[in-house]
């Protein structure tokens, strides 16, 4: 085999070769924020976490499945076919109140401002990615004295 070419340019969708295909692994998401595009409707799982036919298991361990705010999911997750409901530990559904996620050149990129995420990670520290955690409430309180 020589894979010097890639799948057709306009059809990268996954091709499944039989009806017996299954997911047979465990997928664990930990200390992760999964938001959407603010579309509130869901058809066939758009704007959500989509779990297809599965014998494996999805684990959400201290994950924010966002169901409020500017980047909400239409549903935390959607099961397709024989998809199995995930195991959830420490899952929250808060708007992370990102400072902004559109300009990666700024230091505020993907900063989390939601105070409710202050201890939401698996180590009881702020649930965030690699950005800063600057709760809005704290900032407002500080601003009162300026």
């Amino acid at each position, binding site marked *: 085999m020589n894979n010097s070419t890639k799948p057709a340019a*306009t059809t*990268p969708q996954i091709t499944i070769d039989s009806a017996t295909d299954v997911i047979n692994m465990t997928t664990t998401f930990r200390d992760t924020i999964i*938001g959407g*595009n603010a579309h509130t409707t869901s058809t066939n799982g758009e704007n959500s976490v989509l779990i*297809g*036919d599965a014998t494996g298991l999805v684990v959400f361990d201290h994950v924010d499945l966002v169901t409020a705010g500017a980047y909400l999911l239409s549903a935390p997750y959607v099961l397709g076919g024989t998809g199995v409901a995930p195991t959830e530990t420490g899952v929250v559904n808060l708007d992370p109140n990102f400072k902004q996620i559109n300009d990666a050149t700024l230091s505020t990129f*993907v900063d989390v401002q939601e105070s409710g995420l202050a201890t939401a990670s698996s180590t009881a520290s702020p649930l965030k*990615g690699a950005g800063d955690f600057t709760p809005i409430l704290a900032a407002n309180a500080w601003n009162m004295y300026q």
Partner: protein
Amino acid sequence: MLHRVSLALALAGITAAAGAQTVTVNSGGGADHTTITAALAAVVANPTTPDIINITGVGPYNESFVIDSSVSIVGFGVRPTIITPGVAGDSVTSLNGRGIAVTTHTATPGAISVRLENMNIIPANATVTRGIYSNNNTAGATADEMDIELVDVLVTGNNGSGVPVTTDGLNSFDYSSTPGSFTFTDDLLFFAGLVDVTMTRTIASNGKGALSPDGLVFNPDTPHALTVNEGCRFTYMNRLGIQVAADGTTLRMNGTAANPILILGNDLNSTNPAFGIWHDNEGTASNDYVLSYVYVLNNANAGISTAFVDAGQGSPAVTADHLVIANNGDVGIGILADALHLGSSLTPPS
């Protein structure tokens, strides 16, 4: 023009045991050579491994080349720009049109290890297809392994004046607003053959050519490993940020809190299916599949689409931590084993 570099068969497997051979390149003179091509030819003429080519001038270096022996090419105290016209003259290994090609050699088989460090790679014209490309030489040593490492490498478009259209991959460049600017026409990084790839702080950005380019395609012939380390960015492509299509791939994405991996803004305004990360992997139980400190934001379709299929193959466990996934067109994450949700139902947001 096709330039080939090879080492003697007897030395093919030797690494640190032999003394390093270092040559220098500066297009402005004052070094051993004025072109990288000439330096590659020189280290072949005096076969010693490992070979190191230190580039001491910023260039530009208007050349394409094929690497088929172990060598490190390093921007040494400077960050040179290679303006590549595309390889020509290859008839068997799909190298034509690639900017920099890595392949195994027909006559001198043996595993090779190639390192590119601290450089910019941009196209010299609007017909160059891929920035960095690998494939085994199908006419010769097809069973040889390639190990490729990229450190602080930027692959992006040409602003028309021989300058990269971005330096950090954090902005989308509008080619239509800058007359004379152009992009690679296809995937910026494409790895086929028997190849393991490791990259650190490497950026593939603003590939907006006609062939629906992806930032990174990892498509080895047999199960191999892709390791994406801190600071890598795959941004503003016409299609996918990363495509991992080969079965059995070991994938490690090791971002850090200080320097996460960014997969941003791929195909926001097109009807192309454009995922941040697209996995299609029929794996084995021994595969690592790890994602840590990865941002997947503002991509046109799914943030991450993962399919692990075929019962009985023992697909790997997947662990993901400190991801932020948001504002992708349709699905935040698709964990799928059927085609139900990956067809026409995935369309960009209006």
